[in-house]
């Protein structure tokens, strides 16, 4: 990788479900250490774009590259599986509904993938779990099951689980949208901590305050296109496009 290679590059991303085109020729680059927020109305294609990055929702056109390596390669089944699993190990993802494994305790949620995929010993795995859980403030709950945790705690464990694979890039899809308001902050704090550690992050969010305080760049999406992008001060205070203004007006009115 040369210095000119973008860390993440999305080239002409296009996605259709039948006749419905949900991503319309989106191009985007993200630099290493950069934190990008994606905002926009419901149904605008934010999740679809995010989930295209690790090929969870494969694009119908265009390319995704991580450090110059194409993620969404077309390969014969077996080769594709091998390739995509290797790529996904480098891309952490956090979901709105946590998706913790209910049959595993917190420790095993965190260590299952590293144990299986990186072949680390049980002792190393224990150390890893303790480190990662300590990082998100969940060490005391290491032997709990997901059902015994609050939403905020579940999401912090889910972040620790993703981080345990030592990803280069983290994707967050409305990580706090399913949480009771009083639990949002504890998750935001963990994400801020990651930001301070210069983790590269792409964050789909409805929380404008959070986006403004943490992100380097904000993308406003509507109807499958990136309408406008720029630094948070610009997008939130002085957007160029009417659609952006409209959205922010409605959204801020609705949330306050």
């Amino acid at each position, binding site marked *: 990788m040369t210095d000119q290679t973008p860390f993440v590059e999305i080239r002409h991303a296009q996605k259709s479900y039948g006749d419905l085109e949900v991503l319309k020729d989106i191009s985007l680059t993200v630099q290493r250490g950069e934190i990008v927020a994606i905002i926009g109305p419901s149904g605008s294609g934010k999740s679809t774009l995010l989930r295209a990055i690790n090929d969870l929702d494969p694009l119908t056109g265009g390319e995704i590259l991580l450090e110059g390596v194409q993620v969404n390669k077309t390969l014969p089944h077996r080769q594709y599986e091998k390739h995509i699993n290797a790529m996904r190990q480098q891309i952490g993802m956090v979901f709105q509904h946590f998706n913790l*494994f209910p049959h595993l305790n917190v420790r095993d949620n965190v260590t299952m993938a590293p144990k299986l995929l990186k072949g680390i010993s049980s002792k190393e795995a224990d150390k890893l779990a303790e480190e990662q859980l300590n990082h998100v403030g969940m060490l005391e709950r290491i032997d709990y099951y997901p059902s015994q945790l609050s939403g905020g705690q579940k999401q912090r464990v889910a972040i620790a689980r*993703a981080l345990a694979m030592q990803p280069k890039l983290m994707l967050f899809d409305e990580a706090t949208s399913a949480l009771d308001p009083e639990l949002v902050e504890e998750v935001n704090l963990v994400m801020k901590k990651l930001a301070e550690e210069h983790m590269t992050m792409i964050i789909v969010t409805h929380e404008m305050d959070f986006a403004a305080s943490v992100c380097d760049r904000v993308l406003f999406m509507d109807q499958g296109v990136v309408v406008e992008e720029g630094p948070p001060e610009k997008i939130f205070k002085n957007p160029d496009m009417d659609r952006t203004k409209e959205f922010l007006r409605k959204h801020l009115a609705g949330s306050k």
Partner: protein
Amino acid sequence: MDIDLMLRVYPYFLEAAWVTIQLSVLTIVLGLICGMIGAAGRLSRFAILRFLAAAYVSFFRGTPALIQIFLLYFGGPQVGIQLDAFEAGVIGLGVNIGAYMTETMRGAIISIDKGQIEASRTLGLSKFETFRKVTLPQALRLMIRPLGVNINAQIKGTALVAAISVVELTYTAQRYIGSTYKPFEMFLIAGILYLIIITASGKVISYLDRRVRLQ
């Protein structure tokens, strides 16, 4: 009611009950094996395997088990399959219940939240690793109860092989009626023994279900 007679003949029924238990265990094991293969086929990414598994399920669920057993036991020799009554009973009933178990297992597997699979795939686990570590452990917990329903049906279903003279509980009751002319007493003994076997198996299943159930 002739209690004396009942007390006199029940030891013979105990032997028959043992045959019923053997039939039950063997057919359930065979059914579980068929169910696993069937469910794997139903969920396969190859159309031909999906078709074969679906055909298996619809044949065995769409025809009476008794016909299947007759087909195997009486029809088998005609196509070179020579089985004694017990073997035909085990295979016929086992393959039959396997069709029901196929659907039970498939149902449990497909009921696992898609988000679970996505979370696992996102971490970099392969399809197979995801199945083994995420889907299956959760599906197994979910399938114990409905498999218990299949098992309950199966134990009662073993009575069918009386029709090909396997000396199990129902057949034994019929035979003793022939010599004692006391159908009420004979069927009552058989009924009580079935009840004991089924209650015991139900207890084992609830215990397993409670052990592995997710809070």
